[in-house]
């Protein structure tokens, strides 16, 4: 019984610690210029440490990407918040995410109340993200193991599309599957370093506009993790 109580106390302490770190992370993101209240609230709520491998738990809330296996990373918190904010997220918005990774971005969107469909090209990552999201109460997020280049025609159209893997071009299928009035955010450039974020706005079926937003610095992984 004593052991059980002690165990619960340790867990509670850990929970407090992560919450403090999460709040500090959200404050930092706000200081960097993210203003959307829904986005910030989601960043304060989603337990990012659940989305990183155990060996990086103590770094989970630093403003760095971290490796998640298969040569892939969980994006740095600032980038996740920045891209989320640009989508003008709102409850019941139908969002397609290309590049599930560990599922953190999908969880942030789901926390806001979005209906999230997320695709991952690595099968192992798709499986683990599906299990993780279910365990954390984000079971409404639908995860599919597939090449995001072709989008998700069965569930189209989407109110927003968020591409979290860098691409040298904008897959036409993703534009097609965007609802008129929808927005897509896609980073173009290197996986790390400076990328240009391209905002695609589909005003109507025949009126698609793009805007090359200011560059964003995608910081590399922490030392020794590459």
């Amino acid at each position, binding site marked *: 019984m004593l052991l059980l109580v002690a165990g619960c106390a340790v867990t509670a302490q850990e929970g407090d610690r992560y919450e403090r770190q999460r709040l500090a992370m959200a404050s930092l993101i706000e200081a*960097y*210029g993210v203003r959307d209240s829904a986005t910030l609230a989601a960043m304060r709520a989603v337990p990012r440490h659940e989305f990183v491998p155990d060996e990086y738990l103590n770094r989970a809330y630093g403003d760095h990407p971290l490796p998640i296996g*298969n*040569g*892939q990373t969980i994006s740095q918190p600032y980038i996740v918040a920045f891209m989320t904010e640009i989508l003008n997220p709102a409850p019941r918005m139908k969002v397609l995410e290309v590049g599930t990774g560990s599922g953190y971005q999908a969880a942030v969107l789901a926390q806001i109340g979005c209906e999230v469909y997320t695709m991952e*090209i*690595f*099968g192992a990552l798709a499986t683990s993200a599906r299990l993780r999201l279910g365990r954390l109460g984000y079971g409404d997020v639908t995860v599919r193991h597939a*090449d995001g*280049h072709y989008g998700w025609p069965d569930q189209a159209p989407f109110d927003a599309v968020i591409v979290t893997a*860098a*691409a*040298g*071009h*904008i*897959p*036409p299928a993703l*534009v*097609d599957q965007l609802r008129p009035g929808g927005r897509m955010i896609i980073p*173009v*450039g*290197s*996986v*790390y*370093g*400076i*990328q*240009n974020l*391209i905002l*695609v706005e589909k005003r109507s079926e025949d009126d*698609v*506009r*793009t*805007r*090359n*937003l*200011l*560059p*964003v*610095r995608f*910081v*590399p*992984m922490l*030392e*020794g993790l*590459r």
Partner: protein
Amino acid sequence: MTRHARPLAVALLSASTLAYEILLVRVFAIEEFHHFAYMAIGVAMLGFGASGTFLALARPGRERALRWFTGAALLTPISLIASAALVHQVPLDSTQLPWDASQWPRLAVLYLLLAVPFAVGALAVLLALTLEPDRVGEIYGAGFFGAGLGAALALVILWIATPARALAVPAVAASLGALSAVAVATSRRAAVVGALACVTLAAVALARPFWRLDVTPYKGLPQVEAFPDARRIAERASPLGWVVAVDASAFRHAPGLSLGYRGTFPRQTGLFVDGQIAGAVSHWGEEPAATAILDWLPSAAPYSVGGRGRVLVLGAGGGTEVWSAASHGAAVVVAVELHPDLVGLAGWVEEVGARFADVQVTPALGDARSYVARSTEGFDLITLGAGVAFGASVAGVHALNEDFLHTVEAYVDYLEHLSDDGILAITRWLTAPPRESVRVILTAGEALSRVAPQNAIDKLIVVHSWATTTVLVKPSGFSADEVHALMSWAWERRFDLDWYPGVEGPTSGFNVLDEPVLYRAALAAVAGRERAERFEAGYAFRVSPVDDARPYPHHFLRAGSLGTFLRSDRGSWLAFAEWGYVALIATLVQSVVLAGLLLVLPAVVRARVTMTRSWLRLVGYFLAIGFAYLAAEVAAIQQLNLLLGHPVYAVAAVLVAFLVCSGLGSAWSDGRRETDGWLAALALVGMLALCGALLLGLVHLLQAAPLAVRALAAMLVLAPLAFVMGLPFPLGLRWLARNGAEGVAWAWAANGFASVVATPLAALVALEAGSSALFLLAAAAYAGAATLGRAGAGTRSLLEA
């Protein structure tokens, strides 16, 4: 046999360190980016300078010098292997230098690790000189001759071995040098054992290198190789680049593809040079319509205004532009590509012909400027693609790359090789805020003003997609029908026309820019130089056209903006980040600190002198000749880059010429009066001033000649210059030694310090003012040395108070 042992050892050790220096340039270009080349040269100089200072301060007796010589010879191969292995363990991220203080000590460690083999190798050479004062000329000559051979050896190795394996070859050469040193060792048995151990170690490293190339994750190759089913299907190595082909089902390369495209994507193989995307081989299949995607790329814009019978593709890479020309009805396609391996792997020569039987495809291997210079044909279209990957373009990692394809002289050349109806088409990535695109527009305007100045307003079209800008230049002017055809083509593809004959003002299109800068740039470009200069002066980035003397079209950072950029945390000034420039500044700072610590401080501690005028003269003389030598070398490398068509050829040619001829000059100096150093410096003032004024013109004259002729001409120009440049140092040193040995330590320290600092400093001067100005600066430094030397020659000793 024993008589030749020491010069032979010196030659082999010098060959090994020089080869290592050149190979490091290649390895840094692969693992990091081109700007790290300056680091490789800088560390070599640091090592050489440090050993000189050490020896001058330690002044070992003969017995100790004999032991040290053998020891240094044995340590050279070991340090070459250890250095190559250990530098790959230092987790440096150069892009974090401005923000992350922990990167600086890592850079310092890297610097020191790299400097060690150069220091040890140079120590052996200097000890040999000390041990045989009556054979200084012979040993000095052997050192320089060996170094020259080392430069040639590095080139040969790079043709036959992968860069990782090639890095072990200098250790093999050095271990042979160690073996030669055994003949003059005091403890023969131990030396034999040591030398054989070195040979064994080097052989093992060659067979199975203790390191592997760790390509920065900022480059495209590691990213594509992380795809699920990625497979490296081919790998080729040459001095021109490390070419890798990767198959991955998720890899797709279609720069700036229209958002309106609804067709299929071909399966593609990614081609990478030095880890960066260099194009894609598209496997079109049997479907006749498979190549339709090519008409939805921005680079297809020139075909929308009518058929282009004869097309010249500059930088064919994976062949996308070649396929595009063929599928748009070209009858003749000449495709210039610098990398033969790219052409071989891409296979477009055969495949285009097989698919389009009536199209004649001719590959032209070599550099594009040289091809254009010697071509007598007129083309209906000359096209240049976007080149490097988007990420590299945004991040400014190519800021220090000399690129002679986008200078005013280059554009003039292209325009002069167009047929009466011909078009020049240049596609570049559109960054935010725009800069490369703006410079292309202004450069095109400047070239147009030189070739066909009348009605420039009707000769330029600027079109941009969501990711690229394409600039079309037609010296004969675009007709109204052509403009309408292009407008219709662009509308369908959701591309925007920023400038065209008849444009009335900036329009808000599909791909919105915060400011209509492309329109404004085009307006300024066609309105003459004065208006263009006003536009350039008012733009946040440096976007004025560049020329062959300052061929840095990817450098946009204004020096004055650097402070603001470094003070910023994130965000608004990020666009001004230019990693190449930042890395160069970092290398310069680090060079000053390390050279000060390793070269000057020991001299201060051990060779204390009163700072008299004579002492200042001594330091000034050796500082000046140290800086001048390196400045002249960097300027020569830059101009020969244009002449020979590739930086590796230029570096090798300059190093071979400078080392061999300076060695001969040094050997010849034995017969001259030691007070004549200032005369040599004076002669160099004239020679370098001539280089500054005339060399670039000569390069332009020779560009059309075959590579062998160009290389020979380069040697003939550099040989006398390098010969004389070999005189001031040994003459000055001999004079010092005769008049007071205490000054020798300071001479080494001053010369070493200048050599180390001069490499990044000269690169910075070249970037800001151009190579011709750098030649003049080298001349000015020699003028200073001549003045100081002349004044010093009137006194008994430079250290005489």
